[in-house]
């Protein structure tokens, strides 16, 4: 009786954990993508102070452990008078950490655009902004999408760390459920499978779809 109750309770908690994991993944992905794009552009800016800021940002967020960063945001920053809610820390802590990696992807992809494209833009006298927006970014985005797919899967996985800042997401929920029922095999297997499904059935197809959208003109099937 007791065990059935605990099981029912645990399944409900697990479902809630899945939803929390999804929400945090989605929100921090948005943060990571937006900041990654901005910092990536700043990183190759014409002005050296901005460029240096970009380098420092990227090196800082890539150089230190995400867990250390999240822990610092959550437990140390309030001592300096800035108390962010656990959700804010989770979304921005993870998002900003991943944006450091994302910015590098953006930079590499833009710098990887064929030099001839740059020369053609000059020959056509395109303004820099237009050239970036219309010529380089579309090509760079296509080139960096597969790497972003991997990065977002990494992001999904790292949401398991927000257990340390009092949010009960999927990993924690499965741990609590396993602790309560003693059935570690069942609940951990369910959680592992849950992450796998989110990655395989949600993130990968989404990125593939975007790749197809941005592939116009790059593969022969994409006939107009």
């Amino acid at each position, binding site marked *: 009786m007791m065990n059935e109750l605990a099981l029912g309770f645990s399944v409900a908690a697990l479902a809630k954990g899945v939803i929390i994991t999804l929400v945090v993944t989605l929100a921090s992905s948005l943060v990571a993508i937006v900041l990654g794009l901005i910092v990536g552009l700043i990183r190759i800016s014409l002005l050296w102070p901005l460029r240096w800021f970009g380098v420092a940002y990227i090196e800082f967020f890539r150089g230190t452990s995400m867990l250390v960063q999240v822990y610092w945001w959550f437990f140390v920053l309030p001592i300096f008078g800035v108390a962010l809610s656990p959700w804010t820390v989770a979304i921005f802590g993870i998002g900003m950490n991943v944006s450091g990696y994302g910015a590098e992807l953006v930079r590499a992809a833009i710098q990887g655009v*064929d030099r*001839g*494209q740059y*020369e*053609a833009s*000059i*020959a*056509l*006298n*395109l*303004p820099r902004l*237009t050239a970036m927006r*219309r*010529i380089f970014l*579309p*090509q760079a985005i*296509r080139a960096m999408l597969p790497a972003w797919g991997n990065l977002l899967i990494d992001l999904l996985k790292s949401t398991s760390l927000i257990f340390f800042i009092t949010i009960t997401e999927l990993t924690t929920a499965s741990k609590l459920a396993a602790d309560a029922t003693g059935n570690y095999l069942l609940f951990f297997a369910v959680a592992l499978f849950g992450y796998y499904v989110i990655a395989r059935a949600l993130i990968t197809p989404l990125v593939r779809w975007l790749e197809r959208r*941005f592939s*116009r*003109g*790059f*593969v*022969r099937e*994409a*006939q*107009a």
Partner: protein
Amino acid sequence: MSETIVGLENLTKRCSVLEELKLGIARTEKVMSEPMVRFENVAKRYGTLSVLDELNLDIARNEKVCIIGPSGSGKTTVLRMLMTLERINEGVIWVDGEPLTHMRKNGQMVPANERHLRRVRGKIGMVFQHFNLFPHMTALQNCVEAPISVLGLSRQEAETRAAELLDMVGLSDKKNHFPIQLSGGQKQRVAIARALAMRPKVMLFDEVTSALDPELVGEVLNVIRKLGTEHDLTMLMVTHQMAFAKEFSDRVCFFYGGKIAEQGPPDQLFGDPQHERTRQFLSAVLEAR
């Protein structure tokens, strides 16, 4: 003016007696008129390596100049400097009577800023060896992008003009194709249309047939030939197509070791080269055939 010169030159072919005299007049005419492009003591170095030194070259309005020479002689650099793809180390480049690389400020010549460059650069168009078409845009989109954002044309107007240009290069049926769906010759013709869409006064062609399969070279050269006869365009082209240079150009420049080793009308340069290096180069090229 230039028609007069061409007329005079045609005449000289028949009247050998007058040849020296007429050529002299023609030369005087050119100096008198303002050149479309002028390189004045231009030098280009990469570190300590000198690519071009003391280049002085005037190109008249509507003149068709071909540049030939062995690889590494600096011939492509000339076009790239004119397109502002390379910064020059010394000298001044003039386009249409005003400085391109410099501007006047308080009576002094100072290096041009971005605004000045953009304004003067608008008179120049360039076609590249490797096409450099925008791969994510159709042929038509390639040709309307810059006219809309740089010339400020309405989309409709830009598309009409682009369609005309694509028609002129013989690609009206390919305008909705992406570059990857086109052959090399077709790509290069789109690139020419794209450059023309900007209404340039000077067109630069940088080895535009070198990346093409031999059977596709002709269609591109035909388009260029047509441009030369039907439009008022100053054309400057780096090429390995000696036959085309001979038939098409008003003047041929032979580059060697960062200098113009020899220049002159094609008949003279190909028929009776004065410079030892020119002879060696021409015989090597012809032997390879």
